[in-house]
């Protein structure tokens, strides 16, 4: 617009994002005690002297949590530390029963590794470490400062929490989402977490900075917290990047700070916390002995690993002739992928199974508010249904009806077809009778066809199909009509 555009306005900026993802591991018991690890129980019912930090209590490492984390490390190509240890992170906060968190400081369980995005971009990981989750503060007034009182639920205190720290290599909010989706897929494949962001079993903080395109130095970062869904991660990052860009263009300096995402107002705001002033005074937890992870143990875990999503996706393309896009959808979770492979093995129709699963099955799942995991549909019946269509036993339309029932109620397609009388009629005598009736009732149309109005044939075909309630085999009907009219 104006010719006096300031010079810096022509500068293009790029975002640099690093994600810290906290994932609660779905071990049977908590990280350092025997309390059950489940979401949604009555407050303070899953607690004991250990996770309440009672005087004299001591932590004992949950070996399963170590295994879960190391399997994630193996899936992401991380280096598993032969020697690791737990440290205490000291700070006072009422949701933390001991006023220190058992975490890992300088010897995390894994280092390195990466997450590969569908775009083939590699986002490298810095580390994955294990710690204990905190309890939950429930402020009577919604916020600590404005509440008359605060209730604390310690059910979550001591739940194993894995922190996956990426390098600052994510370039956009959309890429951040891809990263999270990919990570979530891997975690679900491994069965180490239920990865429900709305229940807090996956939580994500982002370190965001911007820099002029082409620059290799990192700008001052802001840490964005309180994002409660993948969508809010994208929105928060979009907002924050824009905010920083505007600030820089106005000649302001970005300050290193923690900013909370406000979902309703759609903005980030400074928490003005003295975060930077915190000195956590890490030191090795003297209640726990250092960890040694034997190579043999790592090999055993490796042998127990399932095929990972990207490998599976590539295999689906090469083995079943699927498009990469289809393979991506079908491998997005393990239940879908396993279902697909079972139905394909049964039907020998890889392409058709994919079409059904990504088409009608998905549609009916949505209609009934189900997922493959919660629906009663099974791979073998779906394969049988597909065979019924290819063999001409039922029409495509009838098959959709059966599919709807399979998704909603489960069962065997043959029974459903028989019970509902959906089998296709190719018996010429039966069809002939219907054709005769239709021709008798539509003398006018017959006449106009004979007068050269070719389209009238399709009307008659439709009438026959309607009269047979869709069961007549359409090719037979058309041939018979042509014969009679010719």
């Amino acid at each position, binding site marked *: 617009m104006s010719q006096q555009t300031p010079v810096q306005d022509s500068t293009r900026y790029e975002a640099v994002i690093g994600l810290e993802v906290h994932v609660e591991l779905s071990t049977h018991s908590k990280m350092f005690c025997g309390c059950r690890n489940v979401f949604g129980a009555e407050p303070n019912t899953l607690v004991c*002297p250990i996770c*309440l*930090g*009672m*005087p*004299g*209590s*001591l*932590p*004992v*490492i949950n070996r399963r949590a170590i295994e879960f984390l190391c399997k994630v490390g193996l899936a992401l190509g991380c280096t598993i530390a032969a020697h690791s240890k737990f440290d*205490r992170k*000291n700070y*006072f906060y*009422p949701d933390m*029963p*001991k*006023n*220190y968190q058992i975490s890992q400081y300088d010897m995390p369980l894994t280092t390195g590794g990466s997450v590969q995005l569908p775009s083939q971009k590699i986002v490298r990981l810095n580390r994955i470490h294990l710690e204990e989750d905190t309890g939950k503060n429930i402020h009577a007034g919604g916020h*600590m*400062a404005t509440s008359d009182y*605060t209730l*604390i639920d310690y059910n979550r205190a001591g739940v194993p929490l894995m922190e996956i720290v990426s390098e600052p290599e994510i370039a956009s909010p959309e890429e951040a989402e891809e990263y999270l989706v990919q990570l979530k897929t891997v975690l679900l494949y491994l069965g180490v977490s239920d990865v429900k962001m709305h229940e807090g079993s996956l939580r994500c903080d982002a370190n965001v900075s911007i820099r002029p395109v082409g620059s290799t130095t990192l700008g001052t970062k802001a840490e964005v917290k309180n994002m409660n869904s993948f969508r809010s991660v994208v929105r928060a990052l979009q907002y924050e990047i824009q905010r920083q860009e505007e600030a820089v263009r106005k000649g302001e300096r970005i300050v290193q700070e923690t900013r909370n995402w406000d979902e309703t107002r759609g903005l980030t705001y400074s928490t003005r916390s003295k975060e930077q002033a915190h*000195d956590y*005074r*890490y*030191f090795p937890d*003297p*209640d*726990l*002995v250092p960890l040694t992870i034997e190579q043999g143990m790592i090999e055993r875990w490796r042998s127990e690993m399932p095929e990972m999503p990207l490998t599976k996706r590539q295999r689906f393309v090469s083995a079943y002739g699927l498009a990469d896009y289809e393979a991506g959808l079908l491998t997005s979770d393990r239940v879908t992928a396993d279902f697909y492979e079972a139905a394909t093995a049964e039907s020998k129709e890889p392409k058709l199974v994919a079409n059904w699963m990504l088409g009608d099955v998905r549609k009916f799942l949505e209609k009934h508010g189900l997922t493959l995991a919660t629906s009663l549909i099974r791979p073998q019946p779906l394969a049988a249904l597909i065979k019924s269509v290819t063999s001409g036993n039922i029409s495509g339309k009838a098959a959709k009806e059966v599919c709807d029932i399979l998704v909603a109620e489960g069962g065997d397609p043959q029974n459903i077809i028989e019970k509902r009388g959906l089998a296709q009629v190719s018996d010429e005598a039966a069809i002939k009778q219907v054709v005769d009736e239709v021709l008798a009732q539509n003398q006018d149309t017959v006449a106009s066809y004979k007068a050269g109005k070719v389209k009238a044939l399709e009307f008659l075909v439709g009438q026959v199909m309607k009269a047979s309630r869709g069961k007549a085999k359409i090719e037979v009907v058309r041939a018979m009509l042509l014969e009679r009219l010719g």
Partner: protein
Amino acid sequence: MAKAGYEIRTAIARKQISAVEAVEAALAHAQALEPQLHAYIRLLPERALAKARAIDEQVRSGQTLGPLAGVPVAVKDIFCVAGEITTAGSKILENFRAPYSATVVEKLDNAGAIIIGKTNMDEFAMGSSCENSAFGPTRNPWDLEGVPGGSSGGSASTVGAITVPIGLGTDTGGSIREPASFCNIVGVKPTYGRVSRYGMIAFASSLDQAGPMAGDVLDAAQTLSVIAGHDPMDSTSVDIPVPDYTAALRTDLQGVRVGIVSEFETEIGKSDPAMAALYKAAYEDLQRLGARLVDVRLPHARYGLATYYLIAPAECSSNLARYDGARYGRRVDGDGDVFTMFERTRAAGFGDEVKRRIILGTYALSAGYYDAYYVRAQKIRTLIKQDFDAAFELCDVIACPSVSTPAFELGAKTQDPVAMYLMDYFTIPMSLAGVPALSVPAGYVNDLPVGLQIVARAFEEATMLGVAHAYERATHHAQARKPQVALSSSAAGSGS
């Protein structure tokens, strides 16, 4: 009242007395002496008598009796006992009712021992005189103007007063051995990892160990056999079989090499000629029993105190963070926010020495100081361990002073923390090295008892107890005199 624990158990097994009688006598004795000694924070008559009745029932029905069946014992108020108030000597826990029992308490219960009370202690085990208790000081049965030592002063005092034959203490830098020395009893600090710490309120996790305090070595050995062993609830407890320590007790020292620490002899020589003479006599006694004395060196032991006063406060600053008034214990309301509640609760709940050590430890762990203090202290700790390894190449046990003085008067060192810290000069190196050590009565200086320290390789408590037993049998120092309080306590109805 009491005789030794093993004598009481035998009398109960033979139905000469009942467990209820034994416990009633101990309770009466304790109550009678409380005005003078204040050895207990709380007596547990109901719990004790219920347990005693159960033992008597076992006797009646001919069941197998535990190794400490019916024996009255006293435990330091640092051990959680389910359903009972457990204070660790602090105002901040004055109303804390433990929801569970410490592993060692369960082990004592299972062995038939009867806990008659929770004994006084320096707050959170920080102190060497029992004067840092929030509930008033305990006095020494050998000198009512003197301290019983600390931090396990209550247990030492009540065992020294012969109220109970056995007490349980904890030792972080000398808290069993120094009071044992002051009160003329046997006090054993086991190898770090030998006894479970579960349910024992933490002071400095990498140093704390529970151990027996008893009238003689046999009772101490028996008690250690009961409380030792791996505990799945304590990751730092070690899974090594527990021998029967009573089987290892010997009466001569033929073939035993006893190391005498050159640095310690120089030190004790500088302090008090009477003390130096007492220890010299003790070494000669060992020699007479057949031991061969060898000179050993612990060149880094002199840095023990400085090292200890970085590591222990560092750990305590973190261990004591949980006392904030939010979940249990004392609470002082804040200005409508939780952080002022934390500050006021801790300001009101902790005593001066505890605060001093929290501040020391917080400082030592702070960014910029961590490497210079905590990390360096850990390195010196390793050097001290290596000193012991080298010494034990030359000897089987080390004999050395437990303390540099007998019990001092109440108030004598309360204004000078460093003078108080120096009381642990001879006991801290063993704590840092994690090796087992005990104090056994070795005679009297200025009519006050003094203990001899015997130290062994890690997990060789049997060797250490064997040497102490031979020495005790040959010298009978503890039996040579009677404590002041026992003489003046005919009201206690001592029946023995």
